[in-house]
């Protein structure tokens, strides 16, 4: 079937893998995952494209696998973006209601949001998301929808995520080069959190950490809205690199050792244990101390958590995370990572599963697909909104709804 409006595809161009997830919108607007395609990624470092040709080749193979599995043709994708250049911050917009009867109209709401977005970004940066947090009407806190209320002074808190425009464009151009349309770009951390968190957890307050291959994204929700986002260009690749350096083995071997013997906390049983490395013929090459392997890995992962904990502490958000910490991304498969994170954050840590969506259970259980699944979810929310409101709203209003979607769902 051509151009099925119910088909939504999410594309994540990651550092270790390129992943395409296809979802089908049910009659009730709930997406169901029907296909997944992935391939090794060779042209990406730290979440950013460094070799477009290679990426294009890998992307085509991932796409074909996904199309075959879902038995659909993918025309457009929601594209996940990441990289150390992406930053998030909170901003407040103010608007004075001028109408005679002091009733806040939809236009006033759009104006205050526009004011909140009018921020001093560096010249070559552009906004990826501007997420509404809360409205204030004459200083009254916690208003979620002020339209129709009476008031004089309308304020809104927004969380703005922005990135370097050229680097974002690189990914978009590349995808367009494969005859795919890009519906929208989505920050990977936002996508992961959509897949992992339920509405209750967003309301309670939660931290989602997506530790991938090249980058670690983290998103903090509290009172149902995004409070904080960030990217650290440190993740699984760094673990492999540390191991290669510390154990004096080639990078490919370090990668393999990480997967087979790695752990995020040093296992007491690993003390004085050695791992023998063999070549392809089964001959022993040299042996490696298992404790060292785990210690190097543990230090790196601990550092990532510490940096995030430090940043949240600075932002004063640590006490709002009542639902705990959710881990996803490929590196969150490391044994013992939950214990390590619990130790650093001193709170409940849950290995994240894409529970907020239905479909292939095999895919939903895998933490590394959280971003791509989240992209589908994002797309579905977007489409649902469009179907509901599209008949009588212009496109600007739709964009304005976007933040609301994130907040409510």
């Amino acid at each position, binding site marked *: 079937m051509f151009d099925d409006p119910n088909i939504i595809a999410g594309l994540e161009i990651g550092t270790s893998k390129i992943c395409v997830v296809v979802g089908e919108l049910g009659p009730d607007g709930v997406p169901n995952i029907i296909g997944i395609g992935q391939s090794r990624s060779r042209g990406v*470092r*730290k979440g950013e494209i*460094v070799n477009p040709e290679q990426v294009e080749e890998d992307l085509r193979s991932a796409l074909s696998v996904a199309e075959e599995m879902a038995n659909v043709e993918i025309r457009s994708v929601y594209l996940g973006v990441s990289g*150390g250049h992406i930053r998030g911050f909170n901003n407040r917009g103010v608007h004075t209601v001028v109408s005679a009867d002091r009733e806040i109209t939809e236009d006033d709401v759009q104006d205050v949001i526009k004011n909140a977005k009018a921020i001093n970004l560096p010249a070559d940066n552009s906004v990826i998301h501007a997420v509404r947090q809360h409205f204030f009407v004459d200083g009254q806190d916690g208003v979620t929808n002020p339209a129709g209320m009476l008031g004089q002074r309308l304020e809104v808190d927004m969380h703005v995520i922005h990135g370097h425009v050229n680097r974002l464009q690189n990914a978009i151009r590349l995808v367009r080069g494969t005859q795919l349309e890009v519906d929208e770009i989505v920050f990977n951390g936002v996508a992961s959190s959509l897949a992992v968190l339920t509405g209750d957890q967003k309301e309670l307050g939660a931290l989602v950490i997506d530790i991938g291959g090249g980058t670690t994204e983290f998103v903090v929700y509290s009172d149902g809205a995004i409070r904080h986002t960030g990217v*650290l*260009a*440190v993740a699984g*690749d*760094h673990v492999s*690199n*540390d191991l*290669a*350096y*510390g154990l004096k083995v080639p*990078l490919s071997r370090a990668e393999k050792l990480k997967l087979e013997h790695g752990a995020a906390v040093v296992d007491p049983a690993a003390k004085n244990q050695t791992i023998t490395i063999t070549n392809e013929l089964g001959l022993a090459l040299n042996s490696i*101390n298992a404790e*060292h392997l785990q*210690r*190097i890995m543990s*230090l*790196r992962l*601990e*550092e990532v958590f510490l*940096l995030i904990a430090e940043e949240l502490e600075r932002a004063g958000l640590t006490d709002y995370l009542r639902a705990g910490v959710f881990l996803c991304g490929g590196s969150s498969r490391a044994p013992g990572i939950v214990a390590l994170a619990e130790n650093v954050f001193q709170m409940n840590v849950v290995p994240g599963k894409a529970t907020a969506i239905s479909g292939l259970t095999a895919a939903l259980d895998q933490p590394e697909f959280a971003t791509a699944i989240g992209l589908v979810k994002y797309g579905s929310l977007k489409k649902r909104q469009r179907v509901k409101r599209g008949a009588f709203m212009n496109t600007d209003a739709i964009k304005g709804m976007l933040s609301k979607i994130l907040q409510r769902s």
Partner: protein
Amino acid sequence: METENLGSIAETFSPSMPAVKIFGVGNAGGVLLGALATPEFAGASFGAINTDAAALEAAPGTVKIHLENKLLRGLGSGGDPDRCRALAEEQFSTLKSACAGAEVVFIIAGLGGGAGSGISSVLARAAREAGALVLAFVSQPFECEGNRREQQAQGALEQLKAAADGVICLPNQRIFKLIDENTSVLDTFRVTGGFLVEGVRGVWQLISRPGLIQVHFADLCALLRDSHTESAFAFVEAAGPSRSREAVEKILAHPLFDDGRALVESDAVLVSLKAGRDLTMAEVNRVMEQIQRQCAHAKIIMGAAIDPEFKNRLCVTVFASKENEVAKPGPTRPETGALPIPASTRRSVMTDPGGRKRPVIKKAVQGQLPLTIVAKGRFDKSEPTLHRGEDLDVPTFIRRGLALN
């Protein structure tokens, strides 16, 4: 007082005169030593140190130390200060014994080459260990002599500052402002050499010549000892009835003082006046008053001396020094008991603020210590992930200093 301690030394020129040894290091040092070997410096003993046998032969001096090994074959060091430094370290005991018995050691050298840059700092250390107060008089190369010499000179100056009590530095490039454009190369070097000689003479006069206002050797020690400073100096001469005013004007506008800036920023100033018998107290007063006004924060030491040969002329030598912010502790000096210096008077003295440094255009580059080069593996060529000045691409266990055995 100090005469009791010093009187026993045979070589002293006058009872209050400390034993002085003047060393010329390297080719430039040897040549300048020749210029110093005049009756005026009769009380001092001279020594020459070089790696080049031929140049050493030509230099005057009672003590000649030829630093040599098979590698050099008597041909000099080829402008390599590291080689000379190694050589000097090898002969450390020889240098130390050559300095034995001296209370003050002057080191005269031209920085930038091999011997001058390499040996001077080692000699300074040896002399300090032998118990002497070490003052180095050095010149820095002209800019046209090239980058390498400039860098070597800069490095040597730092080392010398750490090793010697005081370094008096003459940037040759500044001399250009003082000489005529048509001056020949030979004359230029003679002029720069002359300046250095004047510097030595200025200090020498302070401590050797009985004057109207005597500077005791103890004062100099109190000011300089263990201070590791560097200073700029200027030397002016004036004649005629308004000579004192003229001299002050010349000092304040002197290019070696960066048009007087060095004086304003200085922490200690040494003034040595010399004139004929007609020197009046009013003249001394006028000069000192002006200098004091310029450097309000500085500790000023002055001396005035009479030279019968100076008729109608007034000669003023000024050393301006700034406290050295990065004074490193040098080798500890064995207690000679000769001149106990109260700790309170041990002040840092001589660094020239703007006087020495040339404007160097620097690019903003992230500095990296040569010790900590860690291969970043696959992240070598990607943009570094910096977090509060820490490069997160470097393995964590290395940054945390974890030892794997």
